[in-house]
């Protein structure tokens, strides 16, 4: 089962890219020119997150270098070991719903510190790749139409985030544990 799913993972990008290009040709889109136009936006996206990455990565790196992260580890030792959750992923789980750029900063930090093939990196990648910055989304959409009483929207959003993290821990240990 795992082998089949890994095989699908391998084919999914070629499949999506081929569908996009073939549909583009059928609809007579100048694919090369449009690609370049879109790629230009990639430059701005990467540059735009640079200052956020600096802010988050220095604070997390200091937190780790000072030994504070070991304090958290000792505090939650039993549950972390039981569920095989690497302690590095705890800050990521806390900030995921709050800030998208902080999340990317912490993810980059984890990948650089624990190595890109580590279990911590894979679990973090799954958590980030399967969720959204709940607070930001609610603020933007409710703000845009002037809704003040958001009723149960926040509770549902945060419960789904928590569910997603727990499920990600489970799935990561199945695929990479």
């Amino acid at each position, binding site marked *: 089962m795992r082998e089949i*799913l*890994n095989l699908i*993972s391998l084919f*999914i990008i070629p499949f*999506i890219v081929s569908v*996009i*290009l073939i549909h*583009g040709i059928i*609809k007579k889109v100048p694919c090369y020119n*449009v*690609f370049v*136009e879109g*790629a230009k*936006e*990639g*430059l701005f*996206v*990467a540059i735009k*997150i*640079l200052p956020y990455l*600096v*802010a988050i*990565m*220095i*604070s997390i*790196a*200091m*937190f780790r*270098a*000072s*030994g*504070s992260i070991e304090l958290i580890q000792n505090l939650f030792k039993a549950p972390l070991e039981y569920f095989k959750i690497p302690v590095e992923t705890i800050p990521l789980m806390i900030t995921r719903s*709050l*800030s998208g750029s902080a999340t*990317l*900063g912490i*993810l*980059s930090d984890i*990948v650089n510190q624990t190595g890109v093939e580590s279990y911590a*990196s894979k679990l973090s*990648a799954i*958590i*980030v*790749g*399967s969720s*959204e910055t709940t607070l930001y989304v*609610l603020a933007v*959409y409710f703000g845009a*139409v002037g*809704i*003040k*009483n958001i*009723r*149960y*929207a926040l509770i549902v959003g945060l419960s*789904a*985030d928590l569910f*997603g993290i727990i*499920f990600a821990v489970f799935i990561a240990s199945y*695929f990479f544990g």
Partner: protein
Amino acid sequence: MNFIFVFLILISFIVAIYRGRLDETVNAMFESSILAVKVSISLIGVMALWLGFIKIAQKSGLIELFSKFVSPVLKIIFNELPKNSPAFSNIALNISANALGLSNAATPFGIKAMKDLKLESNKKDTATNSMCMFLAMNTSGFQLVPATVIAILASCGADNPTEIIIPAFIVTSTTFIFAIILAKIFAKFWKEV
């Protein structure tokens, strides 16, 4: 975020003094700032590549085609809305654009959808069940390809950065369904204030 940022740095200094690791901590501060620049520069490549392909999908109308498949399902989920509400097409476009990792393109559709939903409501500043459902779907972050995450893994030299696609997809789709069911349950039992 302001609080977390200040808290992390100040706690680090205090713990560092206590454990005699002040020099490591200060070094870590400077080294990680350089690392942050390296990460964002190396992100440019994969982000450019993905946004390039996605732009073609946008121009060729592939996203509209995709949203046509989603619409019938939406009619079942948003059963409180009139069947011909203009909100449906905007919700479908928003979900489709988000699914492909196009969050910038998705936002205008999402705001349009919220405006359509507001027209169906008679309360000015209170969220309706349909709005809460739409945002539950949105905040659960359903996506087919987590492009930014793959970009970070690839830029750090992962052997196979796309191997997380399937596990992430299993998690994101399950969370998506969980959020929809939860919003339905809350819609039924939430007392109006």
